[in-house]
């Protein structure tokens, strides 16, 4: 099952789109479930997913919340602070490092440095980095697909 809980409109539209390839949709959901059950904190993952959704203007993704992250304590108040992650004291070192990595990934992935990966590895371990970067490429695809195929309500 997809770890995000979409609003009704998003769920309906995405199901209609992915219904064209149900086997692929199931494999995609399994991948996402495996990522959310993996080594990286669901709160960190959700903050990164939402930051990427903001940068890519994915209205569909911004309307969703990860139940695992909410259960782990992520609140709407903290999500509202996300644009101020570099300076707001509520963000941990792990969250800052991961969100910064997301921004570099979206803006210009070719400029990700050895130091960026080293910092990430120190916090997440190699297993966590493989999990995290796989999450990034999967969300990147999902956000762009949602935008291109008008999954969000506002696209009507």
């Amino acid at each position, binding site marked *: 099952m997809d770890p995000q809980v979409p609003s009704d409109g998003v769920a309906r539209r995405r199901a209609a789109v992915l219904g064209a*390839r149900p*086997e*692929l949709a199931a*494999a*995609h959901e*399994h*991948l996402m*479930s*495996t*990522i959310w059950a*993996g*080594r990286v904190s669901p709160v960190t993952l959700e903050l990164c997913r939402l930051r990427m959704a903001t940068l890519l203007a994915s209205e569909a993704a911004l309307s969703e919340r990860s139940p695992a992250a909410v259960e782990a304590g992520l609140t709407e108040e903290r999500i509202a602070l996300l644009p101020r992650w570099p300076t707001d004291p509520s963000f941990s070192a792990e969250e800052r490092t991961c969100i910064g990595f997301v921004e570099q990934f979206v803006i210009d*992935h*070719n400029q990700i440095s*050895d130091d960026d*990966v*080293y910092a990430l*590895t120190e916090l997440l*371990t*190699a*297993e*966590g*980095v*493989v*999990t995290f970067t*796989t999450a990034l490429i*999967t969300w990147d695809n999902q956000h762009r697909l949602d935008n291109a195929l008008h999954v969000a309500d506002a696209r009507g």
Partner: protein
Amino acid sequence: MSTTPRLPSAVEGAPANIVTVRRNAPAVMAAFDAMYAVLLGGGVAGMDVKEAMRLRNAMASGCGL
């Protein structure tokens, strides 16, 4: 673009490469590979079209692999 891995090999005695680095997270990579196999193996687009799309994507993103 460099293709030198920035993560260690998860296979003792084996050099770091795309296969051995991915094994640091075997469950995630198994799920990814399963999805990729479905993506490549079915649907209405032929393998020639999919390979052309993959290569164009690699060019646009600067992937040396």
